[in-house]
């Protein structure tokens, strides 16, 4: 069965650079979520989209933005990167309430 696909799986950026993470949800899923998991932490909700419209916003910094495109894939854009942005970023998708996560994208800021 198709799963949530995230790319890239690993990314290394320098401070003040910009990074873009991509997410391809499970086909026919109508909601996409982004979560951030710092080292040894539980995942923190960043933002979600329902049918390509932003539906909810969590603890997402102003330096971050996200959107969902007409083909339902989503991108998380992170600018002016800080060392504290180093984390595992999960994308998830859902249909009727069960949320499935991708393998995550590891971002390291040096």
């Amino acid at each position, binding site marked *: 069965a198709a799963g949530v696909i995230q790319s890239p799986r690993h990314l290394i950026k320098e401070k003040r650079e910009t990074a873009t993470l991509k997410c391809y949800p499970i086909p026919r899923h109508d909601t996409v*979520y982004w979560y951030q998991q710092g080292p040894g932490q*539980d*995942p923190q909700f960043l933002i979600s989209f329902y049918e390509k419209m932003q539906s*909810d916003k969590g603890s997402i910094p102003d330096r971050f933005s996200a959107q969902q495109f007409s083909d339902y894939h989503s991108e998380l854009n992170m600018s002016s990167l800080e060392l504290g942005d180093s984390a595992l970023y999960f994308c*998830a998708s859902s249909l009727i*309430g*069960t949320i499935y*996560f991708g*393998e995550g994208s590891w971002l390291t800021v040096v």
Partner: protein
Amino acid sequence: AQSVTQLDSHVSVSEGTPVLLRCNYSSSYSPSLFWYVQHPNKGLQLLLKYTSAATLVKGINGFEAEFKKSETSFHLTKPSAHMSDAAEYFCVVGSGGSNYKLTFGKGTLLTVNP
């Protein structure tokens, strides 16, 4: 508002013995409850889900959880631990209607000793 409390940050068991990972929740809505497992350097895998049908939910890999509304608990159990069960386990509550989202517990690290 919703929240999840995982009562143990670390549980250590011997292979072949029972596993109990404890979770309490609070939610303003009728919640959906989940357990996810995360193996080292891996993504989050759904173990099982409760959505107001049967209170005893069976999941993958021999895990099950029982929803107890009076105790606001959703503890995860397995009769016999296997070495491959060693991982981080997250209890998660989902609710919110059109703004459906998940709230994670802090996680319980399960160690399985040979």
